[in-house]
């Protein structure tokens, strides 16, 4: 009976957290869509999330794209379909791997930074001070981060996809796939629909990263240790959440849009 009660309590707490996060997410979206806007903070966040993540995203995309191209080129060579390398690289990079990889790299970097910063601000009463001086923390701290990621993440995804596909082309040379043949495959399958699929996902990833990171930061308790725990949880939830969101988006895009 006690075990049953404990399970019930645990379930109730989980549902409470889900409810809190959902309400928080709605509040974040409301803050991001309606003025007033803190323009200076938005520009700062775009710079921080885009320029700050640029090198790591480009490097990861290049390396991952080349690793993917090696696998694909080997298998396609066995089937005598080497000329399809460009086609497969576009589908796997632009539609699937690119957005997820960029999302996870940015999530690791940004969610840790956001949670640590907001958690420290909370534990040193800076959030309360903002409220006390008439500022809405959702408007000043959360909305600029959301808008910043909405702009930065698709741009980073495009850059990552480009490097991934270009890197694949150079790997193809090693398997006697000419650049012309590779380019033809890329050009044929780089359709607006495929590009759009790769651009829709980062928008949802940005909502996920900002909601999780800010919520964890703003609810962090227990001083430095609490902020550390919240930061770790934020990175784990964001990263796993991106994989789950990617699955849901892919499924919905196939089902609803038929792309």
């Amino acid at each position, binding site marked *: 009976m006690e075990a049953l009660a404990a399970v019930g309590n645990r379930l109730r707490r989980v549902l409470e957290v889900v409810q809190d996060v959902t309400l928080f997410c709605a509040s974040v979206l409301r803050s991001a869509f309606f003025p007033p806007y803190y323009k200076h903070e938005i520009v700062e966040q775009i710079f921080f999330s885009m320029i700050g993540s640029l090198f790591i995203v480009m490097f990861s995309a290049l390396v991952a794209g080349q690793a993917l191209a090696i696998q694909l080129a080997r298998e396609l060579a066995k089937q005598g379909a080497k000329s399809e390398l460009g086609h497969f690289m576009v589908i796997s990079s632009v539609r699937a791997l690119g957005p997820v990889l960029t999302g996870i790299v940015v999530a690791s970097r940004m969610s840790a930074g956001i949670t640590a910063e907001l958690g420290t601000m909370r534990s040193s009463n800076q959030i309360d001070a903002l409220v006390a001086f*008439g500022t809405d923390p959702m408007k000043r701290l959360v909305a600029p981060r959301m808008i910043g990621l909405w702009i930065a993440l698709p741009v980073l995804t495009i850059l990552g996809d480009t490097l991934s596909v270009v890197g694949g082309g150079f790997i193809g040379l090693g398997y006697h796939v000419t650049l012309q043949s590779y380019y033809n495959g890329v050009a044929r399958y780089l359709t607006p629909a495929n590009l759009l699929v790769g651009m829709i996902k980062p928008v949802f990833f940005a909502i996920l990263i900002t909601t999780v990171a800010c919520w964890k930061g703003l609810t962090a308790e227990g001083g430095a240790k609490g902020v550390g725990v919240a930061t770790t949880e934020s990175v784990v939830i964001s990263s796993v959440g991106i994989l789950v969101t990617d699955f849901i988006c892919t499924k919905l895009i196939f089902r609803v849009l038929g792309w």
Partner: protein
Amino acid sequence: MIEFRNVVFSIRDHVILLNVSFRVTRGQTRVILGPSGSGKSTILRLLMGLWEPDSGSILVNGEDITQASPERMRDIRRLMGIVFQQGALFDSMTVGENVGYTMLEDKHPEDEIEEAVERYLTMVGLSPDLKDRMPDELSGGMQRRVAIARALAARNPGVLLYDEPTTGLDPQSAERITDLILHLRDTMGKTSIMVTHDIADAFKVGNRITVLDRGVVVFEGTPEELNCAEDPFIEEFLEPFRKSMAAAKSREECGPNAGRSATGPPMPQPGGNP
């Protein structure tokens, strides 16, 4: 005027405040005194609308803020300036941006903000040259002064709230902060609420004192009445203070050679030459 009426507040079934009532009239300095964990800082958070009480009412100029909408609460907060524990300065902003924060938010002209920042820094005894420094480059005492300057600059509030303004400071810095609070009280006539566990500060600054013990008001009155209170908790709470006062008194009775060490030159006396 500020009034707490039978305020009850709890966090996760743990009662923090139980039927707390007191009134602060215009120009008065009310000290909320009590040991750590007695719920003192909670009173300020409730007053700023950062937390909501379970029951009871909190009146600011006759308006019950527990019934106020978030928009109205933002306006009510403008009547008050708060100095948080440890200062709570915005660490990503310079000293000047901290002091002029509310003016920046209200989009005042830049030169007006700069002039106000310099004025308020001077008022709290700091050099205006510090305005371009970051908060972590300042000592704890200087950070508290900046926090007071920020509270004063916050739309020139009629009420100042101090949350443990001297905690964690060395005795000299703590005394300077207390003197500054006294100066602001006497020269600007601000209504103030100071939360502290420092009994000496409470006697020095307060017109009225409220003593809390585990969330319950155990005393309300003037400093003189507190000194004469016969409640066992008050007796025990004041004992260390009385001992230190007695020690200070006996130190005064030590005579002119009191500052002379056994082996070295005489110790310096406050405000005078050795």
